[in-house]
């Protein structure tokens, strides 16, 4: 593990699937040496470098080439051209229950799965108890694998796969089927791996997972690396990409800067930083303070804010205001304030839902409110109307930076009308005297008192008086 150099290094990786019109063509081609196929390019000139002890997330829509890339790195698929260097024991969790036989018990499957993953029998015997403990399936371990639920199968697969103590771990969405608690446990384990200097490559559609656990993320699009950089801006950019209303400037900038300008993840630290800088520039920049100026879609694109929707109605003005209705971006925890936005309707909308969501730095939604959650009914509006939507708040969040997402959508089919991610940024200055990692201000008073014997309620009673 201590050997220097990157764990995974790829240069100009390319994969083209051969498509044969006829079943026998593949054999004929091998014998005659004359091409009889058409090609479908799944990966094209992918450059990649993963350092030891790094957790890197891969984002990309279906068919972007994520699984192909993982399989090539895992060694189960042959690349068409390009260089690939891998140093370290590698384990891939690409699919649930591979090598697992439904008729056999969990215990038998652990043994077989372990052997298939390259462990010796002695090694498996040594680890089997801890594998069972990790999977939390001790009660059912001697029952056939086919009787397990999908989540339980995932747990057994994951527990077995990680027991090989890999130096490189590749996970392809296998975790998403486990319940939240098991997922947390797996991520805890992945963090431990990271501390032991192992490299983790993670594919997930859950952008929260990526922002929380990954040091870096990259976006694959049409078999190329579209952008690469810090996890948070990448997830925002990916979201933008997914919902179609992409800031075209980002589309144009990203490929030339990220994949052609300078090779991504070059070995020197300064280069890596530069790459990071350029990609952050590509990603939407966050508005500073409250934006009170009317904003049109074009100006949003210019500032690379993530915005999408059908534009049946358009958000034109928004902000966070203090008690005197002045725009503010700095709020004392515990103070009253008001979120507000104006919506200009361009069409009749009979099922309007609109509201606000506050996210913390990791992208976790810490609060949200819409007319649906507030009054359980949608609003009906006519074209040409201008709505002012506001929510009065007492800021019980603790010290930190927060972002407000604004949105309007149809209730019936969930179609987005106008969404602006992270439209407002504000900072809360904390109540003080509590953990700096606190998420909320619980308006607490701390006390220590010496009291006589007796139960705690009596003691508290006494303290109150």
């Amino acid at each position: 593990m201590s050997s220097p150099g990157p764990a995974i290094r790829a240069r100009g990786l390319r994969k083209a699937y051969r498509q044969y019109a006829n079943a026998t063509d593949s054999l004929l081609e091998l014998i005659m040496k004359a091409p009889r196929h058409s090609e479908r390019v799944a990966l094209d000139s992918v450059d990649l470098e993963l350092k030891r002890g790094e957790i890197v997330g891969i984002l990309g829509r279906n068919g972007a080439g994520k699984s192909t890339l993982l399989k090539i790195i895992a060694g189960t698929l042959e690349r068409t051209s390009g260089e690939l260097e891998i140093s370290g024991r590698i384990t891939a969790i690409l699919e649930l229950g591979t090598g697992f036989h439904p008729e056999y018990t969990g215990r038998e499957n652990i043994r077989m799965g372990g052997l298939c993953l390259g462990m010796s029998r002695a090694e498996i015997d040594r680890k089997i108890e801890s594998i069972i403990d990790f999977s939390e399936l001790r009660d059912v371990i001697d029952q056939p694998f086919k009787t397990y639920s999908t989540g339980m199968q995932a747990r057994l697969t994951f527990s077995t796969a990680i027991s090989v103590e890999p130096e490189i771990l590749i996970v392809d969405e296998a975790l998403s089927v486990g319940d939240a608690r098991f997922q947390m446990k797996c991520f805890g384990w992945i963090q431990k791996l990271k501390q032991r200097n192992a490299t983790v490559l993670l594919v997930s559609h859950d952008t929260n997972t990526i922002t929380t656990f990954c040091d870096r993320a990259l976006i694959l699009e049409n078999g190329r690396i579209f952008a690469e950089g810090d996890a948070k801006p990448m997830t925002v950019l990916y979201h933008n990409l997914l919902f179609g209303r992409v800031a075209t400037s980002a589309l144009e900038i990203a490929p030339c800067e990220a994949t052609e300008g300078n090779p991504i993840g070059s070995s020197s630290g300064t280069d890596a930083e530069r790459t990071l800088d350029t990609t952050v520039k590509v990603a939407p920049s966050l508005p500073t303070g409250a934006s009170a100026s009317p904003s049109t879609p074009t100006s949003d694109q210019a500032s690379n804010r993530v915005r999408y929707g059908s534009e049946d109605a358009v958000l034109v003005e928004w902000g966070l205001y203090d008690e005197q209705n002045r725009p503010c971006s700095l709020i004392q925890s515990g103070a009253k304030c008001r979120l507000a936005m104006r919506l200009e309707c361009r069409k009749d909308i009979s099922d309007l839902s609109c509201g606000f969501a506050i996210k913390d730095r990791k992208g976790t939604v810490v609060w949200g409110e819409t007319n649906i959650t507030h009054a359980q009914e949608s609003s009906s509006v006519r074209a040409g109307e201008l709505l002012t939507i506001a929510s009065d708040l007492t800021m019980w969040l603790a010290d930190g930076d927060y972002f407000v997402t604004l949105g309007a959508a149809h209730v019936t089919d969930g179609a987005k009308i106008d969404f602006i991610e992270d439209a407002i940024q504000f900072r809360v200055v904390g109540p003080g005297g509590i953990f700096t990692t606190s998420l909320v201000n619980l308006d607490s008073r701390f006390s220590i008192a010496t009291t006589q014997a007796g139960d705690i309620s009596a003691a508290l009673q006494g303290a109150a008086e």
Partner: protein
Amino acid sequence: MVLSAPFEAIVRHRELVVELVKRELKDRHVGQALGVVWAYGHPLLLMLIYTFLFAYVFPTRVAGGPGGEHDFAVSVLAGVLSWLAFQDVLARATTILVSQASLVKQIVFPVEVLPIKTAIASILPYSLALVFTIAYAALHGTLTVMVFTVPFLIAAQLVAMIGAAFMLAVIGVFFRDLRDLVTVFCSINLFAQPILYNPDALPAVMQWIFLFNPFSYQVWCWQDALYHGHFAHPAAWIVFPFCAAVTLAVGWGLFTRLKHHLGDML
């Protein structure tokens, strides 16, 4: 040397091979009351049927050997035994990679283990039938010191079977019709070997067919060991091991060359 590579693979992955062979024999009859008994019992039953047919239904006495007349059933059993074991691996080999596609595709798995375990799992159940055949030969007085060549014949046949398994397994992925071709070949080939025929009453054309069928040499060796009791077909004792070695070399070469493309085809 090219021939040592497959054996190195066996040694390196011996635990996996052992476990997979056990698993395959169990899997074939999983959920059945008698389970693995069937794996061993099935060949033995076939042997009993052939014995019944050739010892009682069509009793044939053939002149030959030092002991005078011999029970022809021993000759049939020796030939049928070797062919059935070989046929077993031929029938299974074409689909092993396709049916285990998830193993081949999804995890870092030594694929070469699959044909090896199929060959071993095919030959192993015939051990009981072999014991029966040797006992039957002993009972009918055709057994000589030649019986000590049996381990060598088993080894040579296993080498040939592993080679054939490599070949068929990898070609079967690219050319899926192979499975049916092999099935047809197997039903014909039983009659294209010097197994069921009385050599005293055979048209000349069959002699030629036998000479050109590589499987005949294997049959002749087994018949020499258990029936004739001496090297009645000396050429076979050179051709059979040679062919076995060539099969393995070609099979391994083909397999290692094509295995990188497996991921694309499955």
